[in-house]
Every structure is written in C-alpha cells, then in structure tokens.
C-alpha cells in the first residue's frame, strides 16, 4: 500500500518536471524566434522585392533634360522623368518651372550630410519603425538609402503612375501623378501599398516640390497656422533647427501628441512663394490622415520646403501607472486606410503669386469642389453677434451650485437695449441654457427652469423674431458630464488606442467631462433636433465640439477612424441644417463650411513659433463673401483697441459675449470666468464699435478680399473686389504716404482710385 503511494508521488513529480521543462523549452524557442516559419516568409518577401532587372535608384538629382511630356492642359504642362520618378510642371505662359525635387541651381551648395541629401532628392521619404520592439526608434529614409528602385512606370492619360520600391525595408508605394486643368495632383494608392515586417509611420511624397533656398529673393512658406502665417525666406534665421509639423484638423487625442501649443489646422492647405513663382497646395483627399510639414531654410537642408506628411500609424503613449504617469511608447497596429490620399498643387500666375492669390485658389476650390455657396444678398447693415450666457455652475459644498447669469426675460431686456442703439441686424447665440448651465453636457432639454424653462425660451425667441433677430442655441455634443441622454461612459465613451475612455478637465475643480463617441452623439443630436424646432430656434451654434474634435474612436461599439468622424460630423451638420435651417460653429475645420452659415470666433492669431515672421488673414481672405465670420469676442480681447483694428483689417463683424445685469458672481464658475460680461458695462462700446465697423464693412459684405498687404511696418491694407480698400494703422504715429492719410491707431477707407 505504502509503496504504491510513494510511486504515485514520484510519477507526478517527474511528470510535472517534464511538463515544466518542455514548457520552458517552448518558451525559449518562441522567445528566440526559431519556432516560427520565418525563413519561408523571408524568402517569399525577398521574391516580392526582387529588383527583376530594374535599375537601382540613382543618387543625386535627375538630369534636367531627361524629362518628357506626359500631360498638358490649357495653362500647364507636366513632364516626367522615367528614371527618377520626378516631375516638372511648366507654366506655359511664363515658362516658370516647378520641380518635384530641389532646384539644381543651388543643389551643389547644399550643406546637409549625404544621407539627408539623398532623402531630400528622393521622390518619396518614409518614416518607419520596428513595431515589435518597443525600444526601437523610428527611422526616416528615402529611396537611395534603401537601394530602392522604380517599378512599373507607366504613362496615364494625363500623367503617370509608378511604384516606389524600398526593398531593404520592404515597402512598395504606388503613386499617381496627373495634370488636371490648373493643378497637378499627386496621389498615393493606399490599397496597393505593400508592407513587410516593418511598420510604415508616414510618407512624404515629393517633399521638395517647389522648394527654394533663400537667396535674397522675396518668398515665404504659407502655413495654415491659426488664421494663416508666413515664414519669410531668410538666411541665417534664428533657431534654424525648428520645423513645423501639425496634424490637419487638429491633434488626435486617441494618440500621443507632442505638446506644441499650436493652433489647430482648420484648412488643409499650404503654399510656397519664391520671387514671382508660387504654388498653393490643397490636400484634397484623405486630409484627415495628413500632417502639414514645413522646414524653412536651414532646418533640413538649405531649401525652404513644405509638404504633406501622410500618416499611416501614430505614436501612442501607453501608461502603466495612474499615479506616476509611467509608461512606454508604442504604435497603432493596423495602418490607417484612406480611400485615397491626394494633394493638389496649383501653380500660380506671377500676378497672383502671393497669399491673396493662394487664398483665391483655395476659395475657388471650396466653391467649385466642396459646394460652398457664396453669401446671398446680405442686409444693408452688417450683423452684430451677441452671445448671451444663461448660466454656469461652480463647486459647491456637496453638489455644484448653479450660477444664474441671464434669464430669458433678462435676455429680452438685453436684446432690447442693444436694438435700441439702432443695431437692427443682430444674431443672438444663447449659451448655457441647458440643464445645469454651460459646463454641463448631456441631456440638454428642456431649457433650465431657473432661466425660464422651455416656455421662457420660447417667448424670448418669439420676442426676438418680432425684431427679426434670429436666435441660435449653443450646444456641444462631444462631451458628457452627467450621464444623461442614456449615455453610459463605459459603453458610449470615446476610447483611445489602449481602450481608455478619454476625459477632459477644463477646470481643476470640476470633475472631468467624458468624450462621447461620435457615432453615439450622432444619435443624440438626431433626437434633440425636434426640440430645437419646437422652441422655434433659428439655428444651432455648435461650439467647440462638432466641426473641431476629430479623434479616432476605438470603442468597439462605435469604431470610427478620423475620416469616419469627419463623415459623421458632416452628416450631423447636414441633418441639423435640414431640420433647423441654419447653423453656426466656432473656428471650424473647413470640411464643415458647406453646412455652416456663420463661422464664429474665427482664429485671428498665430501660434507664436519663433520661425513665423508674419501673421496674415488667410482664412479671412478665403471666407469673406463666402461666409460671415467674427473674431474673438470683443470683450475678451487682450487689447481692445488693437484687436478692434485687426477685426477691421480682417473684415470681421463684431461679437460680444454678455450676461444680464443681475448675474451671480461668475468668478469661480467652471467656464464663464470671462473678465467682464455685464452688458451694461459694454453697451456704449457695442454702439461705437458697431457704428465704426458698419461704416467700413457694410458695402463689402458679399465681396471677396482680393488683396492684402503691408504698406509700412504695422500698416496693413485690405482690398475688396469692388476696389474699396481699407488701410489700418496700428502705429502710435500717423501714416501719411502718397496722399493717403491714416491717423495713429485708426483706419481709413478708400473707395477705388488713388494708389497709395
């Protein structure tokens, strides 16, 4: 009996040891990577990337006369080089040439190391990483560094197709270049990209298209930074190493974002001007997966260059500890798939070769391709935009306490007073009307009882309508703070790559607000539309969320890529416009323009990067006559006078954010801490500012801005299509030149004729 027992024990012991050994052995094999069928895979891929007699890509620039015509339009000619995959665009009238590679004239002076020289002359620059090893860092390389070659070069109807092969890192990138009317389009065909073991992060296609070094000519890079900004060509710039690289339509919060403190790119557009030769690039397809990258001279090579950086994967910071913030970097697994990725390069005629010309091209693009219709016949006077704040909350003892700012009956009085100033073209945005005020999101309806409820709002709107004042209700559906609308953060929240629900904390006292999955808020908005209608609202003013927040959603229930989010938001805008009739939104990405009638609080500033040398009203030049817009609320300005002048220069209408006279102390409110809201403090200013702006802008409301330039330091001129010009002088001293007199800190209006 006992002997048997002993045996049994021994057997189990041995069996256990055996299993353990086998287990360890297996783990070791897997760890060493020998268990896989990797050898086969390698051979298979090697076959795929065999050059098959294709000549390896030659370092250096293509020979200038090795180009042959592959396309032609009324104004342009497209030439391509079979050996290098590069192309040239020739403006037929002037003979100006835009090359897809660095200007050969200055190439021998290039001082960057050979590796970068190779990258800069390569038609394609890729960044990749070994995603399996989280310690590895990414590498940027071109064709030459990877013993690359061209595959399958073939002419198409109006251009050519070619596949760039990088055998060393096992990428195949098929592209297409075509000439269409007044632009050249470069395209990456995502569906045919081949990827090996390494992970593609991003591609810069023809990065040095139209690039020029600074050689004393007038020139600049146009960036869609804020309202638009310029990097003037200049040798020996300060802090040369800095470059610009920002995601179109803003950062994707579901990934890691370097904190650059820059403004969101609302317009997928950039350009370069050198002498009288300029082009503007519009990212026309797949822009949600694009970055705008710009390297002024000295940053990466001597050339000033700007390009689209096509994103395929993004970096993600995987946190492993809530308390210490420790973690590591990783990358998204599957690459982003876009239907197409296309950049259009519009070469400009010499007389249009400035940023106003670039803006005109982009405006035409919006009108013709995006279906943005120019403004209909406007009213005689310019509009005044008044944001009325209803209520907000602040931290209370147990629950947040409600701070009333403007009840609906006080709003009637407020509007009446402003109307009494003789301002009859007014648009009201009522914010903070929802349950528990401005900082509360979710379950907007009914209008908060403490402000007057639905009935109060209805009577306010009815009153406004008697004065022909439209009332928009402010809403932001991208956040949820209270779980209403049947929102459960675990089920319906926007999740990042790690599956964490994203939150935003705008005020340290307030509990973080949860981001809502776009496909969830689509349902919520659809459900709320009838309520807006029943109140009689003329429109919805989408603030801060829809039209601005483009984040990949990894919530498996509502999975959406950036492009999907753009589509979801567009469809929301379409449906709400259809149901309500009109929409406004603040500082929106330009994909929303088709449905938005008014762009509120359009950015009027740049991001103060050291390399930026001038801020320009590019967005405003594009928009004037297309959409109405305002700049930042007048009573929140840093400098009242200067920024008033800027709104005149930028052709923007006045906007104020106001509260009633008997508002609670909003100092500690979560969102409405704004300096000074009481309308009685501002009523005189409103009258004065409106009168001055109306005088300047009333008769050009539907006109395009045709020209904008600097006449002297801090003296700017804006010209409209009727020939009317407005000259703004920001200086402390008067401007007097060629018969044009502008007093200090003032502006002058000139109706056609005399040239200053």
């Amino acid at each position, binding site marked *: 009996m006992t002997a048997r027992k002993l045996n049994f024990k021994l057997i189990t012991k041995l069996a256990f040891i055996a299993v353990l050994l086998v287990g360890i052995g297996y783990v070791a094999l897997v760890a060493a990577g020998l268990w896989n069928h990797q050898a086969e895979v390698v051979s298979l891929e090697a076959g795929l990337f065999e050059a098959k007699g294709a000549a390896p890509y030659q370092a250096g620039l293509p020979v200038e006369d090795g180009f042959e015509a592959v396309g032609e339009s009324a104004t342009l000619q497209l030439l391509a080089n079979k050996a290098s995959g590069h192309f040239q665009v020739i403006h037929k009238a002037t003979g100006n040439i835009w090359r897809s590679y660095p200007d050969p004239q200055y190439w021998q002076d290039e001082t960057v190391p050979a590796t970068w020289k190779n990258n800069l002359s390569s038609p394609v620059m890729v960044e990749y990483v070994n995603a399996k090893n989280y310690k590895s860092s990414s590498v940027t390389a071109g064709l030459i560094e990877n013993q690359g070659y061209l595959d399958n070069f073939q002419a198409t109807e109006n251009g050519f197709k070619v596949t760039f092969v990088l055998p060393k890192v096992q990428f195949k990138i098929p592209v297409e270049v075509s000439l269409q009317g007044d632009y050249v389009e470069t395209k990456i065909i995502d569906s045919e990209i081949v990827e090996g073991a390494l992970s593609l992060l991003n591609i810069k296609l023809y990065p040095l298209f139209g690039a020029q070094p600074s050689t004393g000519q007038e020139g600049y890079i146009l960036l869609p930074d804020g309202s638009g900004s310029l990097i003037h060509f200049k040798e020996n710039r300060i802090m040369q190493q800095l470059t610009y690289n920002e995601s179109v339509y803003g950062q994707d919060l579901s990934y890691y974002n370097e904190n650059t403190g820059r403004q969101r790119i609302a317009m997928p557009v950039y350009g370069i001007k050198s002498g009288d030769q300029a082009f503007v690039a519009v990212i026309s397809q797949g822009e949600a997966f694009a970055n705008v990258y710009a390297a002024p001279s000295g940053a990466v090579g001597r050339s000033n260059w700007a390009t689209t950086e096509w994103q395929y994967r993004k970096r993600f*910071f995987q946190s492993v500890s809530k308390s210490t913030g*420790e973690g590591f970097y990783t990358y998204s697994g599957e690459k982003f798939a876009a239907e197409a990725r296309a950049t259009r390069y519009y070469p400009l005629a010499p007389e249009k070769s400035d940023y106003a010309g670039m803006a005109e091209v982009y405006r035409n693009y919006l009108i013709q391709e995006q279906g943005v219709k120019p403004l209909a016949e406007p009213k005689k006077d310019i509009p005044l935009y008044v944001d009325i704040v209803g209520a907000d909350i602040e931290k209370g003892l147990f629950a947040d306490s409600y701070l009333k700012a403007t009840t609906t009956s006080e709003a009637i009085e407020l509007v009446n007073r402003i109307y009494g100033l003789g301002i009859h073209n007014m648009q009201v945005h009522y914010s903070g009307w929802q349950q528990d005020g401005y900082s509360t999101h979710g379950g907007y309806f009914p209008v908060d009882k403490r402000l007057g409820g639905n009935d109060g709002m209805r009577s306010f709107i009815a009153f406004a309508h008697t004065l022909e004042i439209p009332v928009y209700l402010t809403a932001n559906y991208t956040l949820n703070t209270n779980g209403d609308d049947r929102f459960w953060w675990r089920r319906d929240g926007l999740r990042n790559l790690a599956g964490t629900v994203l939150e935003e904390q705008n005020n340290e006292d307030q509990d973080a607000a949860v981001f809502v999955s776009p496909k969830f808020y689509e349902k919520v908005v659809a459900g709320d539309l009838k309520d807006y209608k029943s109140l009689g609202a003329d429109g919805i003013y989408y603030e801060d969320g829809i039209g601005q927040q483009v984040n990949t959603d990894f919530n498996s229930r509502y999975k959406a890529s950036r492009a999907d989010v753009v589509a979801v938001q567009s469809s929301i805008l379409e449906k709400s416009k259809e149901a309500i009739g009109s929409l406004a939104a603040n500082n929106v990405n330009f994909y929303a323009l088709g449905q938005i009638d008014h762009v509120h609080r359009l950015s009027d500033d740049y991001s103060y990067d050291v390399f930026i040398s001038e801020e320009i009203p590019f967005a405003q030049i594009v928009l004037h006559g297309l959409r109405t817009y305002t700049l930042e609320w007048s009573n929140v300005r840093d400098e009242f006078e200067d920024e008033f002048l800027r709104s005149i220069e930028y052709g923007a209408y006045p906007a104020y954010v106001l509260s009633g006279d008997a508002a609670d102390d909003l100092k500690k409110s979560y969102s409405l801490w704004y*300096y000074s809201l009481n309308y009685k403090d501002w009523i005189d200013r409103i009258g004065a500012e409106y009168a001055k702006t109306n005088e300047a802008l009333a008769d050009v409301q539907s006109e395009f801005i045709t020209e904008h330039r600097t006449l002297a330091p801090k003296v700017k001129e804006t010209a409209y299509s009727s020939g009317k010009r407005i000259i703004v002088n920001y200086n402390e001293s008067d401007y007097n030149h060629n018969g044009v007199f502008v007093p200090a800190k003032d502006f002058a209006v000139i109706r056609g004729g005399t040239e200053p």
Partner: protein
Amino acid sequence: MKNRRLRIRPAIMVLIAAIYITWPGLQATASQLPYETYYKDGFGQLVKTQAAYIPAGILGTGTTGLLAAADADASRAASTEETNRLQLNQPKDIFVDGKDHIYIADTGNNRIVHLDEKGDFVREIKVSESPLKKPSGLYVDQAGEIYVADTGNNRVVRLDAAGKLLKEFGRPESSYLPAGFKYDPVNLIVDKRGFIYVTTLGAYQGLVQLDPEGDFISFFGPNKVPFTLFDAFKRFVYTREMYQRELRKLPGAIANSTIDQNGFIYTVTKEIQTDQVKKLNIAGLDQLKGKGEFAALQPVKSYGEFFHYSQRGIRPQLNDITVDAAGNITVIDAVWNIISQYDLNGNLLFFWGGDVITATSKTGVVKTPAAIASNSKGELLVLDSVNNLIQVLRLSEFGQLVHEANQLTQEGRYEQSEPLWTEVHRLNAQYTPALIGLAKAAYKKEDYARAEKLFYQAGVVNGYSDSFWQNRLKWFQSHFGLLMNIALALGIAYLLWNALSKKLKWSLKLRAKSRPKRLLTEQLKHVFYLIKHPVDGFYAIRYENKAGFLSSIILFLLAAAAYGYMQAGTSFIFNPAVHVGIDLLPITVQFVGIWLGWVVSNYLISSLLRGEGRFRDVFFSSSYALFPIILIGIPITLLSNVLTLNELAIFNFLKLVIILWVVLLLIWMVQGIHNYTFIEAILIIVLSLLALAIIVILIFILISLSIELVNFINSLYQEVIIR
C-alpha cells in the same frame, strides 16, 4: 548615454502626462498668446486677466521687431554679417542704460555686446589689454562707464565709455572679510556715489560693498536665518560641533540685485521661501516688509508666483529682478519660467508664463531665463541663456492702464486714479487691484459704505475694518437717540421686573412643582451645575448618573454646530477666510475626529492607569466639557460682526477664555471621573494626547500603504495586460 536616456525618459513622460492633464484647453482659444496672465489675491485665488505684456519680438539675432516683413529688405543686406557678430553664447546678464542702449554680458564669448535702442549691433567689448574671461554681470553708469563682473578672472573691472580699462578691483583686502570668503563676482550695481555692490557667488553674508577706490566697506543687505523653536531645541540638545555642522542654517545667498533711480537697492535670493525680494534703503533696511495690501493675511510675504496646480512641490527660484521707472518690480523664476510683476510696495500686479513646451520655441516665451531688464518705454527684455536670444515684451493696453492707475494710487492721488480704475474694473470685473483702488478712492471721498463693500469684495482686512469703523460711528451718531431710548426702556423694564418678580416667583414655583421631572432636561441642566462646580459635577457624572447618552449627544452636536458657526459666522475682519467661503465639512469632520480620538485615547490611557471612569463616562463628560464653546462661542461670533480691528484685543481675549475654560474643564473632568489628583490628571492628559498622535500616525501609514499597494497591483496588471 543610453543609461542617461533611460533615466530621463520617465521623467519626461511624467511631465508630458502632467502637461496634458493641466493644459487641455490650450488649443481651444481663438486668440492665443503663448502664455496666460493671472493675478493672485491674498487668498491664493487665481484671477485670469488680459495679458499685461505682449510679445514684441526677439533681439540678439539681427532681426528687429516681430513682424518686420516690410522692412526686411533694408535689414537683409546687413543681417548676415550682423547675425554672425551677434551670435551670443550662454549670455548671463543684460543691462539697459539711460538711453535704452542694451549691454549683454556674453559669457560664453568672453565679451560684452553693445546694442543700440533698436537692438542693432553697435560694438563688442573684450578689453584687449586685459581680456575678459566669462564676464557674467555688468553695470553702466550715467557717465557711460562700464563695470563688469569678470567672473573668470575673479575681479571687477571698470571701463570708460570707449571700453578702455580704467581700474581693476580684485579681492578686497580687509580684516573684516573672513579668510574663507571666496570672491567670485557674478553681478554688480553701482550707486550714484560710485560705491560698488558686488554679488558674489554663494555669499550668504550679503553684497560686497566697495568704495570707488575698491576698499571694502561692509557686507550689504544680508538675509537673516529664521530661528525656529525646533532650532532652539537642537541648540539645546546638540553638541557645539553638531550644531555648527548644520549647514542648512546659513542664510540664503543673494542671487542678483538692481538699483533704481532713487538709490533703492533690490535683491533677490534663491533657495528661501519668503522675503525673496528686498528693497533696501541706504541703511540696508527692507522697505517692502509689511507694506502689502494683504499684510494682515500674509505676515511674511513670498515672492515669485506659481499656479497652484501642477506646480506643487518645487518652489520658484528667482533669478533676476528689474525695476522700471515707476518702481514696479519684475522678477523671473528660473524653475517655472514665470515672470511676476509687483508694484513699488510689493503688491502683485500680474504674473504670466509657465507652459513648458519642449517641442518648439515661441516668440515671447523664454526657456531658460537668465536675466531681465526694462527700458524707458516700459518694455521688458528677458535674456534666454539657452536659446541665446532676448525676448522683448511690450506693455499692453491693459497693462498700461493698470500701471497708470496704480501709480496714482500709490502716490495717494486716489481721486485721480478713480476713472482709470473704473475702466480697469469695466474691462475685468474680477481684477482685485482695481477693487482696492476704487475702494481707496471711495474712502478718500468719505463714501464709506461703498468703500466697505469694495474692500470686502477685494478681501482687504485693514481697509474694510477702517471703513466699517467709520460706518459704525455714523450709525451710532444717527441712532444715538433711539439707542438711548432703548437703554432707558430696558432700565425701566428691569426695575419693573424686580418689583414684580417676587409675586411671580411664587406662581412659577408652583408651576414647576406641578410639572413631572423629565430625565433629559435634568441631565441637560446638569451642565449648568457643572460649570459652577466642575470637579463635583464630573464626579456626579461618574457616580450619580447625572448625564445620559442623549444629553451628551445633544450637547456635543450643539458644540460642534457652535464651532462651525464660529468658523463661518465670525466677521471677515477677524476671520478673513470667510471671504473665500468656508467649507464646513472638513472643519466638522476634523472637530468630530479629534474629539472622538480624544475620548478613545483618554479612555485607553486612564483604564491602564487605575482610572475609574468607564468609556461612557469619558464620552459623556467630554461632551459636557465642550459647553464653553456654546456658551461663549456664539455670543462672541455675533459680537465680532460689530467690532473692528481696534477691538481685536477684546475678541482675542474672549477666544482665549473659551480655550482656557475648555482645557480646565478637561483637566477637572479627568480628575473628577477617574478620581485623580490634579497633577495626575495633567499627566494623563499628556499621555492621552501622545496616544492620540500615535493613533493618527498609524491611520496615515495604513492609508498610504494601501494606496501604494493598490497602485502597485494596478500597474502590475497594466504591464501584464499590455506588454
């Protein structure tokens, strides 16, 4: 290299995570300066304001002005050569002379760079006859003579306007200088008499004051060492050697200094928590002490502001100071990149900066501020020693307005300042200096009611108390007749009462007898007996069941409520915290917690040491002992609302009475219920408090350990799941 990177990475990640949490709204605003400007009132409340300073360009690069596109053509030709000549290398000091010419101590290039008022290169000074070596500070006097702190050569040199060496000042010979004193001049200022004040590296003795001949006069403006109770204890316990080894007890070394037109010398000191900025008169006395509006709230003032979120832990380290023509003081903080501006009395006006962006560099934001200077146009020039450039900030419309208004107020021209402050207030209703300015104007105009209201809004105790005093006087004057009548009526009523009470007493007694005795009321009544005969009263609780559970709870709740009322209901004058609003919950929890802890620890200790009281006795009598809080606390809280700072002594005395009385009652309680002598009772109380402290410490350890454990398990789980 690799090792280092590994170490740095987590730190950066933490930083990034922190930034992301605290600056989420950065991309949201339409008009976007690269920094935000705030004001912080005496209660530490942040108030966002319009920007006081606006980026106006970058100097030291050949580019003048920010958006210089239009005149770029003119400057382009000269720019290349100029840029090369101008390229700074780890500059450490900047000085602006009376003509707004700029001098930079270009430390890494061993030279002084001279720019004109537009920032264009004029010349460089290397002193070829005796070359400069790592000059890190300089001063230019009105005659144009240049004084350089030539750190590398351990000397100060004086040059004439053309840059020729006039005199060289080595380590001064003096018996007053300690033998171990290291003479590393890093900065200097020169007063009108030609006396030189040298900042030397790490010299805690103060500035080295030299006469024009270079003879040592004395140390100027040393900082003092704070001497705490703990230090006294150490001095008592430690040996002499041990105590002397306490290096930390050296006073802070002055980091930088400046001098204004009136001859006041300003110093900044790193590594100390308070009084980092000093404004010294010729005798070396600090002129800022006790001058601030919030002096009542902040008896010791700390300079160098910070946002209270994200920045706990590391304190600001002030690097340099500048004073503008109006006497406004601006300091830069090398840790948080924050520039703070104070008026001539040390009241905060604005502070801005803070956001550390590593990915790019911004116009108007300094990454490593080394020095700051101001010119006659009111611009600030901040020297960045890593990016090797100078950021210029100009005063904004709002900043200008505040400066003008504040100057009038400081000069006592309150009426003239009123319209300006009104405009500031209109632009920013929450900006406290405007409220203070308006309040002072109202006080001057004898509109005390308005002054009182505004001072209250601003949270200024002294001003409020003064206005309240005036209003009270006025009230008394106008209501004198009524008051006298009331007093008269009361007197008559008292007399009548005396006359009638004899009759009444009889009938009352009858009624009392007829009523059945109720236990609860009897037990509650016991408290009145207790305050008359404390020891007997407590003895009665122990042995005669004079107190019950219900009555104790009632008394305790009343005491807690009275305590809460004292915290929240006391006048703003004696309890400025009411201005920000009192959160009663933590106060109550604290009160209840300490009381419970006392009950438990006292019971535990006394039961070990032959105490006769049971737990319920300790519980009951501890509630009864709180009675003074109800008895006196409520009346003095009510009273506080008609007192001013002049009657502070009365208020404090009454508060002291409560404390003493409660303490005495507790001693008698221990004596009474446990049957101890007086001395034993005190000993027991001390032991109980010790036990209480141990209990609290144990609870803290338990909580923090379990939090650590949860975090550890969580990160372990995350690692396993993710990797």
